[in-house]
């Protein structure tokens, strides 16, 4: 959708690919041409579609194959431009451990930790003492929090190592455990970068994505409150650090370098995403740039048409990822058919939505329905505008997180910009139950229910008695 829109603005013909469940999806409806593929991971058939439709380039979006070096290489081989970095860059930055080593070489701070696994308890004690407690034990082969243990004091170390390595053994068939320093209340702050094939590299500032559930971002902002309010020097420092890593691999196209920040001005390299990101609109609204246009220019061999000093940040942008999920049931996905939809609009509101009334949200993919993005001159203005847009937004048929966002945006700690990656967990702990609806609200609901019930009966009667002029008159009379 996002990409089709950019292509149309540049008079480029778009070809969408779709899987069976996405036959009626928005991106297919909007594209100029469309072709079915067995799966979005099926490289061969995607390249076949490109050949059949004489496509010159492929935009991989931000899921599935967008960070797949094999796909980028296959495009190169097939003579189709891959709109993204080179396969070599993806490979070198894709592995977390390789990227961490590269970051250290480039003088970019990483979370302090052991370079080699702790071999035995004595070794672990020595490493932990050197780093200073609290420390984090992490499975070498791991991911998803498995084999992870926080240790606050040396007395807890022995038991924690035993638990972590047996958990790692069960999950990943490797009991190797690393030790890392714990960054207390870390914020997730990332830097948007762009590079062309002529070696020009710029950063487009930061995004703060600390509000996460299930380790996935749900609210993103540009700029970061931490940087805007207390640490303005961090933007240039982090931007330079991100560009050092990019320069080291000769990076071109868009990318994002992710960091943890501790609130005292320190930041630590996390990883690089070698693609356009879901949350890119907040950067677009604040810098005034169109990042997909920029991607297309770069892929076409053109130079980035501005220099670092031309990049200006104006105002505040905020994004909410609207998902078909139930925040009251641990954010459980809620697929199903969208029966009614009212979308927000008006000043400063941008909605990148992939759904419509009548669309069935498939079980197979991510439950993201839309990205609601607002812009305002300052953070409070953006919060107010977002609340207003959320009030206008209505999705009936599936559970969504719309109401949950309204609660968060009214939370005092959120409004203060006091964020860290544990925000959602802390929010649940201090959350108050929703107040009982007022008698007035109950009366309104009762009136609407009564009117709906009466209309249903009239519809049923109408169905039986063919067309009854009398009834439709009566109905419009009642509804006046």
């Amino acid at each position, binding site marked *: 959708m996002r990409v089709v829109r950019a292509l149309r603005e540049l008079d480029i013909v778009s070809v969408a690919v779709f899987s069976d469940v996405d036959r009626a999806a928005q991106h297919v409806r909007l594209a100029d041409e469309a072709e079915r593929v067995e799966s979005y991971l099926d490289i061969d058939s995607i390249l076949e579609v490109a050949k059949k439709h004489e496509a010159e380039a492929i935009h991989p979006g931000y899921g599935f194959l967008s960070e797949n070096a094999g796909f980028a290489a296959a495009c190169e081989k097939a003579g189709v431009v891959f709109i993204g970095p080179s396969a070599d860059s993806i490979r070198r930055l894709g592995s977390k451990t390789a990227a961490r080593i590269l970051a250290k070489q480039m003088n970019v701070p990483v979370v302090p930790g052991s370079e080699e696994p702790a071999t035995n308890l004595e070794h672990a004690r020595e490493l932990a003492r050197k780093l200073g407690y609290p420390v984090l034990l992490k499975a070498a082969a791991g991911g998803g929090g498995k084999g992870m243990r926080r240790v606050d004091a040396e007395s807890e170390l022995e038991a924690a190592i035993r638990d972590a390595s047996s958990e790692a053994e069960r999950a990943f068939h490797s009991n190797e455990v690393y030790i890392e320093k714990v960054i207390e209340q870390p914020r997730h702050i990332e830097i948007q970068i762009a590079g062309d094939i002529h070696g020009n590299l710029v950063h487009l500032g930061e995004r703060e994505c600390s509000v996460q559930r299930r380790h996935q971002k749900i609210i993103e902002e540009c700029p970061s409150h931490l940087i805007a309010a207390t640490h303005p020097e961090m933007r240039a420092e982090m931007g330079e650090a991100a560009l050092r890593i990019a320069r080291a691999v000769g990076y071109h196209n868009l990318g994002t370098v992710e960091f943890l920040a501790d609130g005292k001005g320190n930041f630590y390299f996390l990883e690089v995403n070698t693609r356009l990101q879901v949350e890119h609109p907040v950067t677009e609204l604040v810098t005034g740039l169109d990042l997909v246009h920029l991607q297309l220019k770069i892929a076409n061999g053109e130079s980035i048409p501005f220099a670092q000093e031309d990049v200006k940040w104006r105002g505040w942008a905020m994004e909410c990822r609207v998902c078909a999920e139930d925040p009251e049931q641990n954010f459980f996905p809620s697929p199903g058919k969208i029966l009614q939809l009212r979308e927000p609009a008006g000043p400063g509101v941008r909605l990148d939505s992939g759904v419509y009334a009548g669309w069935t949200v498939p079980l197979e993919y991510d439950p993201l329905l839309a990205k609601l993005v607002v812009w305002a001159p300052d953070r409070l203005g953006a919060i107010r505008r977002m609340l207003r847009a959320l009030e206008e937004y209505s999705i009936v048929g599936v559970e969504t997180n719309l109401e949950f966002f309204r609660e968060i945006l009214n939370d005092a700690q959120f409004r203060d910009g006091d964020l860290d990656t544990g925000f959602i967990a802390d929010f649940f702990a201090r959350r108050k139950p929703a107040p009982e609806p007022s008698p007035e609200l109950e009366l309104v609901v*009762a009136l*609407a229910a*009564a009117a*709906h*019930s009466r209309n249903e009966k009239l519809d049923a009667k109408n169905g039986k008695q063919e067309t009854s002029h009398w009834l439709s008159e009566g109905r419009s009379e009642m509804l006046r």
Partner: protein
Amino acid sequence: MKLQILVNGHAVEVKSEDLGGVVQVEPGVYSVLVEGRSFEARAIRNDAGIRLELDGRRFAAEVRDPRDRGQKSAAALGSGRQNVFAPMPGKVIRVLVREGDAVDVGQGLVVVEAMKMQNEMKASRGGNVVEVRVRDGETVSAGDVLVVLG
């Protein structure tokens, strides 16, 4: 004529002339004016009655028309039974309550696993467990009633 409507288990009385302030603006979408205040409600019919959304909040409503035959007594109306549904297809890992148990709001009732995620269905209000409709290990479909609260 008076209508009795249950809104989230609360009985609300409405006179038919009050419906003059209600206009259907789109199918299932109602603009409601009450003493000069403007509201918009969205209604859809489901198995349990009419589901409404107003001001970002969800409501369940049931309309009792005195002309309808076989109407339940007022006492039965006020009892406000509530079904706890399975949100998606999955497998019951554990039933945490028994019939007759008193439960508090937020208390876990049934653990269902789907898409490799375990999920605890919680009571959205306090009450008694009237009926448990599933057993450990049972497969359930989306919308199946797991537990009935009363």
